[in-house]
């Protein structure tokens, strides 16, 4: 497939945030809490004793975040010579479908499940069942509240929301902000809202409007237009990456590009491009393809019983706040390495990586 990395089976290392889920300061449900910066080091292919069979269960494969995740997972599976099959639920509304896919995966004889759950809670029984059958489960990308998972690799969207919120609060300017966090009722939407609200609480940033809506572009387009009509005096819009994409054109069209700053709760390649061009200001990258790589490696580590660190159950690639030239003094776009976040141009999702190739 286009853009696949060379397979050499060598170990690699990358900066990461590590969390001990059993530490008293950490909430064991979902393992959220303080973390320490460190490094994640991958296995070497020679350390892998079996052609392990791993399933990845994704919410969908319709946007760059999850395609990037697939890219990272497929790449690392090839590096380690394990088999990886990917299924997706087709959207966040398909909870039952995802439960089914986890079960299908277990009954197909997999050794481990990489679970990117569509819901924080709803996969817990399926996880319990998989664990009972002796299948390793790694919580990837979205987070589940079950304490039974063997390991976690994720950027909590609370942290993502918090990251952009903290940044805004740190500007120490009084800002009127409209928040467009994403589809109503989706776990990640509510979590990024929660993080953002917590971060700006007590600061000079005021949230004047919150509007939910699907991440379909036509929906966000309408939402931003109405938000602008409803709040002509806002200073910033904080929204999904799709919000940023549609809002940049709209603001330019309405001649408000100078007055209203655009911020995101996550990024897509297009959103990064907008930040680079100065049409948007800042947004955090969760580094999804990096998450993908670590998740496969962690699963194999679990199966091989070679933990990186017995005390650390949760790893996250160091999240990045990408800011562009428009945000005076914060421009870091030159340093941004997109390969940690997205699949290379032209990458087709790999649904089936066979072992030993």
């Amino acid at each position, binding site marked *: 497939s286009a853009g696949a990395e060379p397979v050499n089976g060598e170990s690699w290392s990358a900066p990461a945030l590590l969390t001990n889920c059993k530490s008293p300061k950490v909430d064991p449900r979902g393992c959220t809490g303080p973390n320490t910066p460190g490094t994640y080091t991958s296995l070497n292919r020679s350390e892998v004793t079996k052609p392990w069979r791993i399933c990845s269960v994704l919410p969908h494969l319709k946007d760059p975040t999850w395609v990037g995740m697939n890219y990272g997972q497929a790449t690392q599976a090839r590096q380690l010579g394990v088999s990886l099959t990917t299924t997706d639920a087709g959207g966040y509304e398909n909870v039952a479908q995802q439960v*089914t896919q986890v*079960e299908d995966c277990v009954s197909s004889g997999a050794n481990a499940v990489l679970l990117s759950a569509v819901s924080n809670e709803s996969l817990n*029984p399926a996880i319990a069942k998989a664990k009972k059958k002796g299948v390793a489960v790694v919580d990837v990308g979205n987070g589940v509240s079950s304490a039974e998972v063997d390991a976690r690799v994720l950027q909590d969207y609370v942290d993502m929301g918090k990251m952009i919120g903290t940044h805004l609060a740190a500007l120490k300017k009084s800002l009127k902000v409209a928040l467009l966090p994403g589809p109503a*009722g989706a776990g990640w939407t*509510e979590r990024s809202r929660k993080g953002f609200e917590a971060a700006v609480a007590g600061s000079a940033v005021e949230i004047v409007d919150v509007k939910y809506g699907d991440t379909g572009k036509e929906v966000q387009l309408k939402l931003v237009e109405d938000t602008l009509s409803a709040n002509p005096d806002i200073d910033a819009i904080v929204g999904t990456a799709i919000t940023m994409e549609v809002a940049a054109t709209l603001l330019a069209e309405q001649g408000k590009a100078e007055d209203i700053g655009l911020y995101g709760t996550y990024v897509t390649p297009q959103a990064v491009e907008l930040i680079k061009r100065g049409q948007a200001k800042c947004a955090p990258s969760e580094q999804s393809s990096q998450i993908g790589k670590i998740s496969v490696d962690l699963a194999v580590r679990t199966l091989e019983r070679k933990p990186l660190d017995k005390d650390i159950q949760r790893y996250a690639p160091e999240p990045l706040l990408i800011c562009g030239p428009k945000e005076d003094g914060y421009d870091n776009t030159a340093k941004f390495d997109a390969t940690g976040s997205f699949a290379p141009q032209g990458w087709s999702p790999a*649904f089936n990586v066979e072992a030993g190739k």
Partner: protein
Amino acid sequence: MTTTLSPERTVTPATARRSLQFILTTGLLPALLILMCVVFAIVEPRFVDGSNLLNVARQSVFLLLIAMGQMIVLINAQLDLSVGATVALTSVVVASVTAASSGGPESVLLGLGAGLLLGVVIGLVNGCIVAFWKVPSFMATLGSTSVLTGLALIISKGAPIIGLPMIFSDALATSSVLGIPVPVLLGVVIAIGMGIFMSRTVPGRNMYAVGGNRAAALVAGINVRKTVILAFVLCSVLASLAGILLTARVGSGEASLGASFVMLSIAAAVLGGTSLFGGEGVLWRVVLGVLFLGVLSNGMNLLHVSSYIQELVIGMVLIAAVAAERLKRVA
């Protein structure tokens, strides 16, 4: 006449004729289903594993319940687009209620009661809007989908509702009787009950009359409104039951549960020979329709078919299966 001469020769055409006969009278669906199972079993032996088959059964129960309800409504020449939202609201309400309960065995009953009661209320509202206000059911239930979703979001505040007592999931999702999981058992019992209801009781038969020719039913003295309302109530109650079982299965209340069942339930019912225009539909064929969709998706997952291709295949199979049925009927 020639049987004594060469048994092999005559047996074959007779069998062939009989199986052709079977296909022509009972429809292609059973034949297609069997064919598909055989193909999957050959290509991927794990498909016929006991545990996998049990999986398919367990997964199909929710769709089965909802598709049965949908069938009943379709037979009345109506449509219920709100089954998905009913599942969602039921999930949220049942989770809220049981989470606030003592957690003892009565919380199972409490949850069941609250969920089914909700189903009755939703069905009554849908049914009355259709029967009294004469709003076409497509629009009525499109509207109520929106209302129910709004309610589910307001109650849950967009977050999953946790804290269901363990006993709730144990009783309604994980426990099994004689090796058969409780939800599957429930599904089978209800399917049999509904089959009898639709084919052998007066309200059931009246539904066929109302859906087949409303005016005729009216002048024959059938209470058309009551019949239609009853159909919506049955459908919503079945959807609520699916919502309860799903909630037990996923262990939390979710406002996003169920949306995918709307189109699937209609597809399964129509695949099972139910007419979209009313008056026609048999329960056991809807069961086959549900199994067909369940097996197709399970098999493709086992064969690691890419989800993009799965979309494509499901669409084509849906069209082809219905077309084959139609063309057969014409021939």
